[in-house]
């Protein structure tokens, strides 16, 4: 920090004049960079490499939607659309119900990757009827892995309450791991934009897609629950658990969203778990007195008819069907009239 005196040149001062070549080189550099920068910034939007965004809309983030394929398989000749199992323990009921719609080997081929969607919406003990029966799930996974030689079974849901806790308290995680499957929990990366043509509310919506990677077959495992707003939460409403985003808005048109769900996903088949039917105070339940011990397990390939049958026989609410079933029928997801399409295997 030598003190500088006025008018006296610093002893270390050295003159370094620029020669012509140097000047030209620098001028070319400035011109080149400046020109390129001006092109990128100012060229019309449709020119190649132009970065211009005249309206400010181009820079809007884009979520490219994907479409979900149908997971349905062709109906086996001679089998019913709805299978009912009422005899034996829950596991036998499950097997009978599936056998009535064609048997599980008909639906799942060796080497398939199967995703099972139980309802794990709340951190409740399974006996309270708010979540799927873990015993059925465990056995279903065994059937898939052993009988059908499926390659992999995944279990996924996006619950309302904390996902790890819900899977833990509802014993679904334990059942999955004992059975040989793997639980996929939703985290911030799990959701992608799903395009469902024809849907009224969720034409483009966040969908819990990560576990669906390379999946061949999808099975719903839904409990039957009372629901104040849409009257009943059954097989179709179960798919609500695959939505992400601000899904609590959908209660403003609950029948619209539930019927949209029926076209959003076309499962291979759906199992309705009537072992613990939540008759009132749904869909959370919370008291054993709300639960009716059911004797029935249903399986079906027609989601509309299956829900209608469950509404009538498991919730025991007669034929005053919730409106979403009619809407789903109108959207072509199935036929509501289940009569003559039900088969029960006994003995």
């Amino acid at each position, binding site marked *: 920090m030598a003190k500088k005196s006025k008018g006296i040149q610093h002893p270390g001062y050295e003159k370094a004049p620029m020669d012509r070549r140097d000047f030209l080189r620098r001028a070319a550099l400035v011109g080149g960079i400046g020109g390129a920068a001006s092109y990128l910034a100012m060229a019309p939007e449709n020119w190649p490499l132009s970065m211009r965004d005249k309206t400010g809309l181009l820079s809007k983030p884009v979520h490219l939607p994907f479409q979900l394929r149908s997971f349905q398989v062709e109906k086996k000749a001679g089998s019913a659309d709805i299978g009912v199992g009422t005899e034996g323990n829950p596991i036998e009921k499950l097997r009978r119900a599936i056998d009535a719609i064609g048997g599980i080997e008909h639906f799942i081929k060796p080497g398939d990757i199967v995703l099972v969607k139980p309802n794990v919406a709340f951190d409740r*003990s399974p006996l*309270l009827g708010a979540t799927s029966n873990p015993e059925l799930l465990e056995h279903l996974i065994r059937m898939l892995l052993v009988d059908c030689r499926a390659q992999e079974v995944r279990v996924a849901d996006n619950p309302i309450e904390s996902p790890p806790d819900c899977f833990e*308290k509802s014993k679904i995680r334990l059942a999955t791991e004992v059975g040989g499957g793997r639980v996929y929990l939703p985290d911030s990366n799990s959701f992608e934009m799903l395009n469902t043509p024809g849907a009224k509310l969720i034409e483009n919506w966040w969908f819990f897609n990560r576990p669906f990677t390379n999946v061949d077959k999808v099975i719903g495992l839904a409990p039957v629950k009372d629901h104040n707003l849409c009257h009943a939460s059954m097989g179709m409403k179960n798919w609500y658990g695959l939505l992400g985003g601000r899904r609590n808005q959908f209660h403003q048109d609950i029948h619209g969203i539930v019927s949209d769900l029926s076209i959003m996903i076309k499962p291979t088949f759906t199992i309705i778990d009537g072992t613990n039917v939540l008759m009132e*105070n749904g869909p959370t339940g919370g*008291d054993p*007195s709300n639960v009716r011990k059911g004797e029935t397990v249903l399986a079906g390939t027609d989601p509309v008819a299956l829900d209608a049958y469950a509404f009538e026989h498991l919730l025991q609410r007669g034929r005053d*069907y919730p409106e979403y079933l*009619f809407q789903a029928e109108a959207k072509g997801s199935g036929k509501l*009239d289940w009569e003559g399409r039900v088969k029960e295997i006994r003995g």
Partner: protein
Amino acid sequence: MPPQERVFNNRARKVFRSRISNGELYFSAGFLVFVFIMGGWFAAQGTNYDPTERDISMALMESGSVEDNLYRTPLKLWVDPEQTATAAPGAAPAANLGIFPPDIVGNGWTPSSRMQEFDASNLYEKINGQAPQYVDFGFNRLHYISLEKKDAGLDLSIEFYDMATLPNAMGIFGAQRDVERPLEQTGDAYYYLTDLGALGIAGPFYFKISGNAVDPGIIEKSKELAESFGILASSGNVDVPKAFAVLSKALKVPFETIIYEKIDVFQFSFAKDFWFGKPDVAGDLRYYLHQVTDTEDQARLYADLVSNFEADHDAIKNDGGVAVLKHQFLSSFQALSADRGWIFGADGAPDAETAESALSALKGALFNGQEI
């Protein structure tokens, strides 16, 4: 240029001391073992807990189960302000009962839902799978309401199908009827009782009453309802064909034998809209009658009928607008006539006299004793 600036410490650890004592060595070895044991202890704690503290047992939930004794306000229905205006001041606004007679409520019974109406385009919302059947029979409109009697814990729903015409109603009734159960009549209503309610017709209306329990109260109410529907049907506000009234009221023909044929009556393409009825269920004698419409010529129609009948009948008598014919193979007799806009007759009679007396009974009933 300044010397290269360092970011990280580049000096290795060095030991300057020359002596490491046994005590230090033993302590070090001992300490490492101690650390290992601590680690093991910590890891072992993972399973050392009481899982019941993290959840509540079902037994406890069941014993602590609370009764849901909340009062839940029933659904408050929307009421048209115009109706409220006409109601007596201070009185509770009457529920809109639509087509239903007002006496369906009262005596403890109150509407538990709003009256709903469905037409052919949305009928499936109410009854889904069966809707096409109704539409095939000429369905016009469904009026639906449910009633409840709170103190008795009863409720029932009324499906009141406006089938546009009585024949349509009879058609759907015939298709859905349980023939095992006895038919009852009140006014212009014909119905039978089921365990949970009633099914029947009243004029052009086909009604289904279904209750929530096998209970005498439901049956009682079903009867009352059928009665008021019968009054509704005969009140003149609704259209009951005269031919049906003649058969069922004047001639007391049992309801089950009354049949309406719309086209191709007697397999004649020109004969349309005939009513049939048998005075005796077991017998063969059968009345038939037809009201001549504006587009038809009474004399011409009568002549066509008689001449076509003669293809397999022998005419015994044919004069003055009355013809008596005998079937060539069945040996049964029929008589027919045309008068004042009506074509009427009786067939299946065992002899000519019976046929003629049936004809005159029919005529008497038709014209109510005038000119006999």
